[in-house]
């Protein structure tokens, strides 16, 4: 028995059928076809699947899909407006804040969740915001700098 779940993904209504126990990551990747959130552990411990649900950062892999009925879900796929990059995306590029790119979708969404609430965070607040996101390549410093730069950029999105 599949269960239907409807929610708003990046401002668009979507409907998927899920198995009992399916997580939001599976619903997004296999159900909707939004593969921007990544499977890095399924344990809620790496942050590669970070999305924003109702304004809060959430780990899609440990979020029951059924519990997202009617929720507003944001993923990296919805960040760019047409050809324009979000300031976080531009800043990640300018700061060379990605190498393999696998943690990047979760990292950017964790950062967006921070900036949505706190547009001018301190370095410490940025560090706090990405504390649940593992990066194995960069040593974090370029990522921290990119998020701070995005916050400081005059360009509002």
């Amino acid at each position, binding site marked *: 028995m599949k269960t239907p779940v409807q929610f708003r993904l990046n401002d668009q209504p979507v409907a998927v059928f899920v*198995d*009992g126990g399916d*997580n939001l990551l599976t619903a997004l990747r296999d159900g909707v076809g939004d593969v921007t959130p990544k499977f890095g552990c399924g344990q809620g411990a790496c942050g590669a699947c970070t999305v924003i649900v109702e304004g809060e*950062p959430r780990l899609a892999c440990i*979020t029951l899909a059924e519990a997202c009925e009617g929720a507003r879900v944001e993923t990296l796929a919805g960040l760019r407006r047409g050809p324009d990059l979000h300031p976080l995306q531009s800043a990640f590029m300018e700061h060379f804040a990605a190498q393999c790119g696998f943690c990047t979708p979760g990292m950017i969404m964790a950062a967006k*969740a921070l900036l949505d609430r706190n547009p001018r965070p301190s370095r*410490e607040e940025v560090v706090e915001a990405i504390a649940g996101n593992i990066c194995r390549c960069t040593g974090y410093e370029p990522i921290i700098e990119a998020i701070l730069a995005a916050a400081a950029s005059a360009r509002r999105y």
Partner: protein
Amino acid sequence: MPITVKTTATFAEAADLVAGNRAARFLGGGTLLMRDVNEGSVAFETLVRTTEPARAIRTAGSRIEIGAAVTIAQIQAERDLAFLHGAARLIGGPAVRAAGTVGGNLFAPSPYGDLATALLALDGVATLQQGASRREMPLGDLFAQRGRDLRGVVVSVSILRPESADAFRFRKVSRVKPKGAAVLTIAAHLPTSGGRIGKARVAYGAMAPTPIRARAVERALEGRSLDRDGVAAALAAAAEGTDPADDAIASAWYRREVAPVYLRRLLLNEPD
């Protein structure tokens, strides 16, 4: 068979479903249970959740009642729970805190359960839904029965409101900053009167399979002052009654060895 998810309107119905089915688990924030689902655990087949709200935070006299579904993030945002902000900030990352709940944290296996440790030091008492009725259970008893014959679903936890900002102290020692699993966690409620401690409650996380009270430390602090001499006996008793594990974070030897050091730093407000 895929997992079956059952969503109930009330805690009572949820408690019934869980009680009648050994292969059923109550799903809170999902940080513990969804991992088991993802990793293919066949120890359970049914997830039970409820839509009955349990996200209230109520102050009543000297105690505060926190709904079981209150998230760690909600605690961080709640002014009345400022004394818990330091503890909440050290749990998970923001996304885990947005999901993880007060009720769920009571069931986190060592070395997790930092909030539970704090609640234990604050004389936490859980309200359990068992069938149609509710009963109160001190957290110490809940931890003792956890994983064995504990029945029911936690609806809320009531804790003491510390009498002053300095009366409640919390330290989490972890290898990774800003967050990581605990080498050990210490939470202490240290009411003082005329500079003397009375009825101290000190709890450890990661020093036993569940959060535990450091009763020898509590006894040694009774009537003493928070200075080097006053805490000496407590430090000498710091590892008494503990049963830490050799795990991936630290060994039992190390945890016992540094418990007095971090206890002193907590009691004397020294930097980590």
